[in-house]
């Protein structure tokens, strides 16, 4: 049992982890072919995994409906929506052009996605209000930098404060880029170190076996 739950997954992780690291340094067509093959297998696994996901979704909402939990009506809406779209997809044989299935996508899903995305503008405004309250020295610096960058990005700012555009560019290209690169270096090293831990089986918590190291 331990072989199937621990040893074999660790062996697979070690072999494929190392192979994919080395693949980055090997330009031979065989290496490219290997990467394409792995990518294909990943897509196949992801395809099977979606069955797990949909199963989990249906199970969660079915229980909400049967137990009449708070907001169970939304779960009913989910079932109706899912069955409608699934039925429309089958009826249209998966074709979107000129079908009810395509109409649902264009005029319901895309519109809903657009609505959620456009909400960002309001959320940015309320988050900015909270962040830019100059209560601490750090918040004051943030506020000043934000005002200068915003002023430097619009023609009115440049006409009111000549040179603010250059200052905004300097803020973005020097302190901002330096901070981003600092974060990037730390993230890259952290990601490599995590990869090493996983490839060599030092970090194995993802196996769920409780043997953290």
């Amino acid at each position, binding site marked *: 049992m331990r072989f199937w739950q621990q040893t074999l997954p660790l062996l697979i992780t070690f072999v494929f982890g190392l192979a994919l690291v080395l693949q980055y340094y090997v330009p031979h067509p065989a290496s490219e072919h290997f990467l394409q093959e792995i990518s294909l297998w990943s*897509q196949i696994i992801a395809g099977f995994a*979606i069955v797990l996901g949909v199963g989990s979704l249906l199970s969660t909402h079915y229980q909400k409906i049967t137990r009449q939990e708070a907001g169970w009506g939304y779960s009913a809406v989910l079932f109706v929506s899912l069955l409608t779209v699934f039925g429309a997809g089958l009826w249209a044989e998966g074709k979107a052009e000129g079908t009810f299935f395509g109409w649902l996508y264009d005029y319901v899903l895309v519109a809903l996605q657009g609505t959620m995305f456009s909400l960002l503008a309001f959320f940015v405004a309320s988050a900015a209000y909270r962040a830019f309250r100059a209560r601490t020295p750090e918040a004051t610096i943030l506020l000043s930098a934000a005002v200068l960058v915003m002023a430097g990005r619009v023609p009115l700012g440049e006409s009111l404060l000549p040179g603010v555009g250059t200052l905004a560019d300097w803020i973005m290209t020097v302190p901002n880029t330096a901070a981003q690169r600092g974060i990037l270096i730390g993230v890259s090293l952290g990601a490599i170190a995590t990869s090493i831990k996983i490839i060599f089986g030092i970090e194995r918590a993802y196996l769920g076996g409780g043997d953290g190291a």
Partner: protein
Amino acid sequence: MLLALTLVLLLSARALASDSRLTGEAFDMPGDGGGSIGLRWQGGFEETAEVHYQITLSDREQGAFHLVATIPANTHYEKDRAAPWWVIGTPQPQMHFFQVSTVADSPLLDETRYFVKIRALIGDEQFESPVFSAVPQPNWFQWAKLNNFLFMLMFGAGVLLSIRSARMKPTLFLRRIPGVDAVEEAIGRAAETGRPILYLTGSGELTGRGDASNMATIAATVLLGEVAKRAAGSGTAIKVPHRSPIVMAIAQDMLKNAYRTAGRPDAYADESNFFIAADQFAYTAAVDGIMLRERPAANFFVGYYYAESLLLAETGAATGAVQIAGTDAEHQLPFFIATCDYTLIGEELYAASAYLSRDPALVGTLRGQDLGKGFLLIGLVAGTGLLTLGDMTGGTVWETAVQIFHDFR
């Protein structure tokens, strides 16, 4: 058109004898996937835009040579190649370089010998080089990435040695990370109020396709185990909605194990870990709904996020929950900093599980990362110093050293 051009080239080739001033070579491009050859040559003519070089290629020494390119004589120098010095050596000032990958719109074939002639066009006069030849071959190592490979080996060895050292001496100092310290506080608050904890593992996939979100997602699942152990110990419910079914399957095992470790296997419920939707905004809308309806006492946004970060965190802030975020998506960090109580920035996300578990192996990894950072920091300071000195003195003494640092990027 091509036929006419070929005939012209054939006729003119017969009329020309090779010129001793056009010297050079053709060679298989080192460290590539095959299908290309390189040309190096020196003209000995005036290096101006009025003088041109024609590069012609054939798969037979006496066959029809096809025109590949016509270039001005004052361009395509070897010194301009974007390749490190250990691949191209020290380029000679007047040496030209050209890489050929196609002929007559067809890619070059591996293991096939190709013949090349270079012709100099100076006004009405033409001068032709001897025939050079090379065989394109695929290579097993990309030499331009040698520095990267060596750094990876050194860094990997450093991390493994640090882990070994930490196991032998498990009292390494760890700097405090406020965001990680706040995990206990957030769980404590949830336990006091009797409301659940909401833990999001982000929008990252674990598809193995090498996208940037993979590592952050793994870090998020590892941290989930530590948070769940503490939540289970304090009898607090935890809800983990997912965008990826693969991550959901992994998190399910992590949660079960966390509850088992905390001595509360009976408290684990499968419905606490569930899939919502792979679609970005459908997932966001559903999680926002959970926040507003169930009012979790603490929200954890850990992993990789895209545009949904602010929609999630701002909704959570509006509910008054304690919010802890951790991501290496640098473009989303400002949103989390603005809306969350604590944010694990970049590498702190990877350090969080070590900090919480205090496992010597994980703590040792942090020491290894610090060694790597120290090495890069020294390189940055030395490179900056060399560039500054070179600029101040204006001499060529520093050029070689600066070039070495430049190639190690």
